[in-house]
């Protein structure tokens, strides 16, 4: 183990070096570029033994990774925003083919208007593509997820690609002191990739085939079961990770001061830290505030969300996303979890941070205050409430 002062991107690249991908397909896009730059340096200096492919687009980046995975190799790529949307066809393809590729996505706004800064509209628009989706809060978690991601994705019960999301700039470009696991320990934690879902010269295969109406639904059902199985595999993996590396993670969600909380903000990514600080401050004034950080949007933490919100007076979902014509997508998912569990508490949606706009401690305090009083269903931070669905 060693300590280094690294940005989120660099920390993630360190985690990928430890994971030993055999093929890396790389195409640059802000704010992801540092990851593929660092990986190219690691390949150059020999500290990472991988085929580094300079593809000519994001579509080819993921198509190449799919080919490599079909060859039985551990594959990595990274993207952001427009790049993620450009490769969208391949997202569904990788998931349907059960190719456990890992991809980092630097969460960034989507055009128009053009904007290079962070929000989560890119990855949240792809929730249905069949990928596991994690949202890291800080550089250490980013590194640890990079290492854990392959173990989760490649598990025989899962066999599902993994998208590790890092908030653009706020996380990808912010420097922190990070613990880097020792190589020997990382190798012990993550053995080489073994699969039957690959080209086999002893027993040739026809892969990525068509399946008509008679059989198609069976493949889709199995795909669904695979990503659902990731929930328990994530828990097992984090337990093993803690035993080897001494850092503990909490599965699909992370709760903060929720046991007796009356007002909870549910959010994801790097804004969670400021939410916790604000909750602490409010508790000094007698407000029973808590925070739930969603770590995985897929598989979705239905049970965890329902359990933690069951007894609150009100909750807010704070997200950097809007599904135009409805509400934030995270809010929709949270509400569905509560409805299925028969939990009937007041919930409100706060849309903030679009195009990288700052969310201040004051904004978060206002969320707690306004959900205690009651507000519109969907609220845009900086603009105000919108009478949606009332």
């Amino acid at each position, binding site marked *: 183990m060693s300590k280094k002062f690294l940005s989120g991107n660099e920390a993630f690249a360190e985690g990928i070096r430890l994971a030993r991908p055999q093929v890396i397909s790389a195409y640059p896009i802000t704010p992801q570029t540092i990851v593929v730059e660092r990986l190219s340096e690691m390949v150059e200096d020999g500290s990472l033994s991988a085929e580094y492919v300079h593809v000519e687009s994001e579509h080819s980046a993921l*198509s190449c990774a799919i080919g490599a995975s079909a060859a039985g190799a551990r*594959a990595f790529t990274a993207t952001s925003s427009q790049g993620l949307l450009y490769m969208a066809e*391949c997202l569904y393809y990788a998931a349907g083919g059960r190719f456990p590729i890992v991809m980092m996505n630097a969460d960034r706004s989507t055009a128009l208007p053009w904007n290079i800064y962070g929000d989560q509209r890119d990855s949240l628009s792809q929730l249905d593509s069949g990928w596991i989706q994690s949202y890291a809060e800080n550089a250490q978690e980013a590194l640890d997820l990079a290492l854990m991601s392959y173990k989760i994705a490649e598990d025989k019960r899962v066999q599902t690609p993994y998208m590790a999301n890092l908030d653009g700039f706020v996380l990808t470009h912010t420097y922190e002191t990070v613990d880097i696991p020792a190589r020997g320990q990382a190798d012990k934690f993550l053995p080489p990739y073994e699969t039957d879902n690959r080209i086999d*010269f002893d027993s*040739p295969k026809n892969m990525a085939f068509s399946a008509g109406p008679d059989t198609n639904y069976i493949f889709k059902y199995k795909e669904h079961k695979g990503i659902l199985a990731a929930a328990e595999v994530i828990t097992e993996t984090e337990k093993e990770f803690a035993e080897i590396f001494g850092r503990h993670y909490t599965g699909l969600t992370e709760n903060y001061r929720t046991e007796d909380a009356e007002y909870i903000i549910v959010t994801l990514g790097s804004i969670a830290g400021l939410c916790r600080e604000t909750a602490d401050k409010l508790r000094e004034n007698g407000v029973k505030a808590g925070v739930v950080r969603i770590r995985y949007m897929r598989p979705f933490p239905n049970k965890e969300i329902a359990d933690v919100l069951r007894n609150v007076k009100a909750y807010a979902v704070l997200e950097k996303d809007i599904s135009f014509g409805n509400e934030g997508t995270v809010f929709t998912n949270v509400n569905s979890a509560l409805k299925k569990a028969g939990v009937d508490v007041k919930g409100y949606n706060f849309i903030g941070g679009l195009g990288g706009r700052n969310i201040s401690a004051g904004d978060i305090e206002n969320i707690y205050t306004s959900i205690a009083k009651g507000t519109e269903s969907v609220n845009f931070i900086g603009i105000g409430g919108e009478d949606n669905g009332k």
Partner: protein
Amino acid sequence: MANKVADSISREEYFYGHKACAGCGGSLAVRAALKVLGQNAVSVLPAGCMSAVGFNFPQLCFSNNSIISTFAGTASMLTGVEAGLRARGYKDFTAVGFAGDGGTADIGIQALSGAIDRNDNIIYICYDNEAYMNTGIQKSGLTPFGAKTTTTPAGANIHGNIRPKKNMFEIAAAHDIPYAATASVGYIYDFIQKVQKASQIQGTKYIHVIAPCPTGWGVAPDATVDIAKEVVDCGLWYLAEYENGTFKLNHKPKEFTDVTAYLKKQGRFKHLTDDDIQIITASRDKKWEFIDKNFEL
């Protein structure tokens, strides 16, 4: 000569039991190429005729390792397959792509250009049937001038396709690719020998093979090979190679056969006027002037 070539390929079948139309030129090209490359070929085929007829679970028709790619992703998936197998320590295999004209010259050209630029060790075979046949005969970038398709109707105002074929052979060559060739399923020994040659060369190889589609061209299913010969004999296609920076013509017809006869026996060209045929003939002659000047014999 002929028998020697025929004897040089495998007697095994690697692509059979598929649902291609009777007389399909594309399936003939795939079948012959795999008989050259053998059991350790890994085929990548995008959405298109050959994947549509060959990969319907549970009726899977390749006896070598084969995989469908996205429509735009033939070359990039080939790259990944080749890199992945090499990373896993395999040496004795050939990554080969079979994409149609639309999959190559239109939606797949970016990925193909990227692969050639990287000089990835792959063979890319374009089976050119001159339109999007799988979706029902729509115009592609390789549909020839004057051809009637379902998106270039022949009417009083417009006589089918108004643009000539894109020249994929010279586009591939312009990347300074190690090996590029044109071929026709009508000259199958020439095609087989080009696949054999490609399999011995390191780096990216591109072979563009004319593969008539009786359904789309409006000819009888048993006319595929004859019409694929005739397109070469009348000079509207040519058999050539690009290697070490040099273009080489493999076959120079002593005298061209009649262009009108070639065109008029196909449903897609029946509507052409004498003026249209004059344009096609002039364009052929201009091309051959270029070939005579720039290609070695």
